[in-house]
Each structure stands twice: as structure tokens, then as C-alpha cells.
């Protein structure tokens, strides 16, 4: 269902079915319910400053999750994003602290935009390596990105020698100030991190819905062989989604190190799991081909607002993680229920000889007489 709404042409009108609507809008309903419950318990929850703070937290995960969405839509997974967050921060840190070139006996202080560019390139490179491993060497995405999880983390630790780069705000005399604005700055009273999330979401939405590349991602994830035979450049698509994910991870890494004006090589540990959780709560299928940006944002908000809410109302951290786990499992269970309903509906349609009464297009009536149906499609068989 979600694929038709994401990249769809006309969606057929549906009969009014409250259960189905509740099930489909469950992530949104869950988010509203969370807000209501927490605002009843704590007066501090539903205030503008708090909402902005929480959304800033959400933004970090949402940016990672948007990248992750591309990979999961393709039918892969990217476990390396957390490490890439750390690595890109460290790259920014080392450049802002000054790049010492001993042979020339100089210290280079690149401008902030160069620093940002370098970090993004490094993040994209991690993605590119993932992509090459998956497409050229046929390493399973789980394994390839698991390996890169360690390698990128190791690289971050090696570059920084395990220590944190402090004071990244730069110095006026060196001409490298302004880095702290990426995560700390505000535009119209709203933190930059939130703006970046919005920009990324809009771009992802446009790419997935209105470009051939977006359609190709869905097609490759849905059935790679069929996409391949239809002329879809599946290799390039697969390669690209990992680069996108690496780029998003690097962006998140920049935001975090800018916000803290410090870059630690340990930053981003287990972030990949939060990103995957957001994508999954948003209704994407880990098998590929199904999911959308709206769902991912909702998923990220549910996780973020839940975690922060639990902190605000004073629930112990031990309970926080437990509840988060339960929410993820519940989300997937509900998703399975919805999938089952959809599958049954399609199977019933496929094995019925009638065109469904919801038909509103002229195309449905063009074939009139043949009593022709099929129960041999996989979904029709149980």
C-alpha cells in the first residue's frame, strides 16, 4: 500500500473501513497518543522550547533514517552509519584543529566549507565501499556494512588516537570560524539541525516520488531480476543507495560535532539501530520495495518523543530501553497484520472473476467477457 502512495499513480478509491484506516495511520496515531499522554503527566512536555529540543534530537536520527530508507527500500541494510557519524566528526575535528604537514613544517587550517565538504566526502566514501562490496564482490549487505561498522570506527580511533577534539568553533585569526553554526545556529528561531532534516526529507521525497532513480530504487528492492530485465541499472542503483546513506550519516556527524563543538571518535555508537528502528516503525519492509519518507519521519518522531518523554517524566533509563524495544516489536507486529489484510484482499481480488466495485477508471471496463482469474500467484496460495 505504502508503495502506491509514495511513488504511485492513481490510487483506487477505497471503501471506508475504520479498522484499516487506524492500522494504516498507526504511527501517526501513536505519535499523537504519546504527546497527549506525556503532556498529561508533565507540564513541561508540551511547551514550545521542549518541542523544539525534542525535534532537534529527532532530527539527528531522522537524517540517518532517511539515508537508511534508501538502503532498506533497495532491500539492503546499512549497519555502518553509526560509525560513519563518528568518523565524519573526527575528520572535521582534525581539519579544524589544523592539519600538520611535517615535511613542509606548516599547519593547514582549511575553511569551514572545505572541512564540511571533506567530511561529507569521507562519509560518502564509506558508503561507496559498502556499495562496491555489495555489488562487485557480492558480499551480503549485512556483512559488508557490519565490517565497515568496525573499520570506520577503527579509522576514527586511529585518526584521533582515541581522544576527543575540543573547541571546534575555530579562531577568527585563522579564518575557520562558523563550524558551530551547523548544529548550534538558529534560523527563524528554529535550530539548523531541524532545517537540515526538513531539507533532506523534502529532497528524499522528491527523489523517491518524481525521479526515475526513485522508481528504480523501489523496483530494485521489489524484484531485482525483473527490474534488471526491464532495463533498470540495478547495479548503479544499489551502489547509489549506500552512498546516499553514507552522505546522510556524515551530515549527522557534522551536526553533532558542531553542536558539541567537539568531536569524539566514539560518537554515534548504536545510532544505526535507532535509524533502522525509525524506518521499520514507519512501515518499511526489510525485504525491500516498501516504505516512504513520511513513515520514516513519523518513526523517528515516535522514537524521539518517546525517549525524551520518558526522560522528562522521570522513568528510569533501564525502563526506557525496555519500552523502546517493545514499541519496535509492536510496530512490526502491526505492520505484519496490515500486510496480511492487504495480501488477503489482493488474493481475493485475483481469484474473483469480477472487477471490484470500487472501479472508477475507464480502464477496468475495457475487458468485459472473459471469466479469467488466477489462484496460482504466490499470494493467492496459502
Amino acid at each position, binding site marked *: 500500500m505504502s508503495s502506491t502512495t509514495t511513488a504511485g499513480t492513481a490510487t483506487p478509491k477505497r471503501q471506508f473501513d475504520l479498522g484499516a484506516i487506524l492500522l494504516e495511520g498507526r504511527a501517526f496515531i501513536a505519535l499523537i497518543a504519546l504527546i497527549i499522554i506525556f503532556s498529561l503527566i508533565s507540564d513541561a512536555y508540551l511547551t514550545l522550547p521542549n518541542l523544539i529540543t525534542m525535534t532537534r534530537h529527532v532530527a539527528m536520527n531522522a537524517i540517518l533514517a532517511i539515508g537508511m530508507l534508501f538502503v532498506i527500500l533497495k532491500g539492503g541494510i546499512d549497519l555502518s552509519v553509526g560509525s560513519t557519524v563518528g568518523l565524519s566528526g573526527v575528520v572535521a575535528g582534525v581539519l579544524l584543529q589544523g592539519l600538520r604537514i611535517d615535511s613542509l613544517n606548516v599547519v593547514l587550517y582549511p575553511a569551514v566549507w572545505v572541512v564540511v565538504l571533506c567530511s561529507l566526502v569521507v562519509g560518502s566514501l564509506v558508503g561507496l565501499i559498502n556499495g562496491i562490496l555489495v555489488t562487485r564482490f557480492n558480499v551480503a549487505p549485512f556483512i559488508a556494512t557490519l565490517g565497515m561498522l568496525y573499520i570506520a570506527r577503527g579509522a576514527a580511533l586511529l585518526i584521533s588516537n582515541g581522544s576527543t577534539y575540543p573547541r571546534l568553533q575555530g579562531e577568527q585569526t585563522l579564518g575557520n570560524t562558523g563550524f558551530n553554526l551547523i548544529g548550534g545556529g538558529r534560523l527563524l528561531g528554529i535550530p539548523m539541525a531541524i532545517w537540515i532534516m526538513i531539507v533532506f526529507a523534502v529532497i528524499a521525497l522528491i527523489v523517491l516520488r518524481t525521479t526515475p532513480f526513485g522508481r528504480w530504487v523501489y523496483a530494485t528492492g521489489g524484484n531485482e531480476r*525483473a527490474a534488471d530485465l526491464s532495463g533498470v541499472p540495478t547495479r548503479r542503483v544499489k551502489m547509489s543507495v549506500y552512498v546516499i546513506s553514507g552522505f546522510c550519516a556524515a551530515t549527522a556527524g557534522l551536526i553533532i560535532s558542531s553542536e558539541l563543538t567537539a568531536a569524539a571518535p566514539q560518537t554515534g555508537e548504536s545510532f544505526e539501530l535507532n535509524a533502522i528502528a525509525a524506518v521499520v516503525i514507519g512501515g518499511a519492509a526489510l525485504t525491500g520495495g516498501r516504505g516512504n519518507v513520511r513513515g520514516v519521519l513519523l518513526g523517528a518522531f515516535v522514537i524521539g518523543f518517546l525517549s525524551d518523554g520518558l526522560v522528562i517524566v522521570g522513568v528510569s533509563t533501564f525502563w526506557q530501553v525496555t519500552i523502546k524495544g517493545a514499541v519496535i516489536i509492536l510496530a512490526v507486529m502491526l505492520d505484519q497484520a496490515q500486510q496480511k489484510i492487504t495480501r488477503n484482499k489482493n488474493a481475493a481480488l485475483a481469484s474473483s472473476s469480477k472487477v471490484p466495485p470500487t472501479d472508477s477508471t*475507464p480502464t*477496468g471496463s475495457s475487458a468485459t467477457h472473459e471469466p479469467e482469474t488466477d489462484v496460482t500467484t504466490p499470494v493467492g496460495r496459502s
Partner: protein
Amino acid sequence: MTPEVIAGAGTHDNVVMRAVGITKTYGATRALKGVDFEIRRGTVTVLFGENGAGKSTLMKILSGVELPTSGTLELDGESLHLRNTVEAVDKGIAIIHQELSLAPNLSIQDNIFMGRERARGGLFIDTRTQSALTTELLERLEEPLDPRTLVADLRLGQQQVVEIARALAGEARVLIMDEPTSALSGSEVEVLFGVIRDLTSRGVAIVYISHHLEEALELADHAVVFRDGSLVARGDRHEIDINWVISNMVGRNSEDLNPDLLDTFGEPVLEIDGVSVADPSNSSRLSVDHLDLTVRAGEIVCLYGLMGAGRTELLEAVAGRLPIRTGDVRLKGSSVKGLDVRQRITRGLALVPEDRQRDGLVQTMSVGQNMSLASLLDFVKGGFLRRGPEKRSIEDGVRDVRVKTAGPGASITSLSGGNQQKVVIGKVLMTNPDVLLLDEPTRGIDVGAKAEIFALMAREARRGLGVLFATSEIGEALGAANRIIVMSKGRIVREFDPRTAHRDDVMVASGESQQDQEEKAAQR
């Protein structure tokens, strides 16, 4: 040996299982409308009917997969309530599904005893007993394999035998076979038929479903025909022939199913020149061996041959899916060598693949998205897809190939097999090809939809396309093509004009066994 003599079929005393007044509704859809059906000891009952006519639904009810909405089942004259397949197997009712349900990573014996392992002390699998029983079963089925062989290492036909052995391991009295031959070669089908005859001589009742009408007629002791959820006709062996089946299935004669073909053609559009293709699973062997073939504009050429003759490999190599080892393929005079699938599609060469589910459709996408997938770049302006033109083209395409759907936004899985195949063909036609390649375009779809697909092919040929299609059904080769090319072991062995060709000659040329064609001849 004829089953009638042994089992005395035709007398009601021999009824093993009976279904009375079975109805089944799914939501507002009535899949079965009060069907009465009998299965008799030691006979083969063949079910005919288009997809969705109710055959498979009835079989699911008989085998405990589904419960009837109303109506009763009887076994040996006693009322029977099946709640699940395990109960059905316990009562001796087994079903072999269309798609094999074996675990390829396990051995033959592990598969046969899957779910009912013989265990010592309820803990440890008794490998020796399982092995001995498996050997015994396989010998009975004339397929003496080592029970420890991995299923993945077996040929498809052998896997089918294992599937049957598994059904027999539960001491089946009623064995339901749903399209068991769709994956088998001619000689493997022969073995299967031998097994079926052996089973009936032991008193097992067989219910057999196949889209391959001639093949099913060869087996039938009784036949019943389903249409729109009702049982519309029944007959004994001597009363039925292929026209009886088809006219009852679709309410018209089989002659109407053949399309109008052109008899004058234009310039050569596809030239296959000394093409060799390596076997994808064993690159030291050639699947296609220095093959020459020319298809002209407006011409429909049929590649007829057995499974493994190299038809699929040839078509996939021409389409750019498999690499060409030697020779050249020219499209309208210019070589397509070195071009990938997409570039060949752009040049006007498109393939409708053999396996619709695996290679043809993206199941997670809508009807419309599947239709436009291969021609997506035609709708791009400034890097973005233009929804309006795309939607209009999709709607035109849906109308053009007559897909029966609720709309372009409907899920592809909500379509029947025949309509799904029309979507795949529509997708290919939207790329404006000059040459249309189709690999077994009618596999697993019913007679009515088959006729529509052949009519589509004929229409496209009249529009000036060259059409090359592969089939293993002799009726299709004779009825739907201008020229029949018989392939065997990667080479062209003979060429026929379908207007003058004798079906036996075509089959002999393809290498179908002598016995095979004698039986088919006797059947007519």
C-alpha cells in the same frame, strides 16, 4: 493395464471421498457454488477449468487447507471434518502443490520425513529407518536415488518424484496433484505418468489438475469441468476429447483460439548469426551452439523444443541478459553486441521472460508502475518524471493489452495470472519494440487468456513487429506461428511450416521419445 479393469471404476461403491454441496465464499466473492464431487478408488479424475473457476479452491477444501463455507465431506461414506492439513494427511489425503515445497538444503530422506520424523525415544532421529523407508519408496517410484542426496542436487523431475514420495510416505489413499508437470520435461512427464498408473493400480485415487489439456486427457479416467465456481460437465474417458473440454471450459470451440496471421513479411528485423551461449550453470558447455535465425517484420516465429533445448538461453542472450560467446545479433541491420539490456530495449528489442513472478513483475509495485518500468525514461523532463504523460501512457497501455484491473494504482498482486502476463507484455510494448521476444508467454494461464495473448502477438506482427516466441506446447506452435523452428541441444534441428506440418513430425524432431508420441497419437 487399464485402471477400469483393476478398480472397476464407474460403480459408486468405489467412491472413496465425496464432497456434497460445497460452497466457499471469500468476502463477496463466491469461489464455489454448491459443488458435488466424487473421487473413486484406483482412478484418475482430471479437473479442467480456467484459473479461478474453482478447481484449486475445491482441492484446498478436500486437503484441509481451507474450510468450506457450507457443504459436507465424506470419506468412505462417513462424514468428515478436516480442520487442517495434518488431519487430512492422517486420513490419507495428500496434496502435491504446483510449486515444489521441498527444502533444497536437506537430503531426500530428511525432506520425506519432514514434520513426521521417526525418532528413537522421541528425541533422536532414527536415520536408519528413515533411510530404508526412503529407499523403498524411491524404488517403488522407479527413481533409485541415494536417500542422502541433497535435494538441491536433483533435477526438477527428480524433485517432483521426491515430492510424490513424501505424499506416499503418509500412505495416501487420495492424492491430489495440482499442475505436477509444469516443470517437467517430456521424458520426466512419462515417468510421472508411469508412477500415476502404478498408484491407481494399487487403488490410490488420484485427482489431477493441469493446464496442459492434452496431457491431462491422456491420464483421465473421468473428467470434470469447472466454470465460474460450478461443476458444469462431467464425463468418462470414452466420452471426452479436447474439444469437449475446451468448449465446456470457455463456451466456444478451440479453433476460435487461433489468431489471424499475416503471410507476407517485410525486411529482416532480427538476425541471429552463429550465436553461441554458454550454459549459465556450467560454462564449459554450450546451451546455444552456433545458431542462425532470421525474423522478418510481421513474422511470428516459434521456437519449439523441450526443456533444456536452449530456447530460454537463446532469448535471454538476444535480450542482453546472458553474454554471447560467439556470433552476432543484429537488430534492423545493426549489431547489438556489447549493449546491455537497457540499451537493447532502447534500440527496440524487448523480452517477456519465462518466469513471470521471478523475472517479469515487481510484486511490491502497482499495476501502473510495473507497466511503465521499462519505458520510464520516456517520461523524464529536466530530471523529473512527468506524472501526467506517464499516467496517460499507462492508461493507454492497460486498455491496449486489455488488463482487467481496478485501476493503474491497484497492486499487481491483485491481478490474475493472465492479467499479470498482459501487464508484462504491456510493459514491453510500451518501449515501442521492433522485435518482441516471448519465452513461454502462456505458462500457467488459462485458455481464454492464452487466446488473448496470441491475438496480441498477431496484432503486433501486423503492426510490423518481428515476433519470436518459445513454447513447449505443440498446439501453440502449430496454431500461433508463421514458422516453427525446432531446437534441440542448442541447435536448430528442423524447420516447419505450421500449415503443412504434422504434429508428430514436429515432436519427433524435438527429440520427444518415441513412446511419448505414440501415446499421444493413440490418444487422438
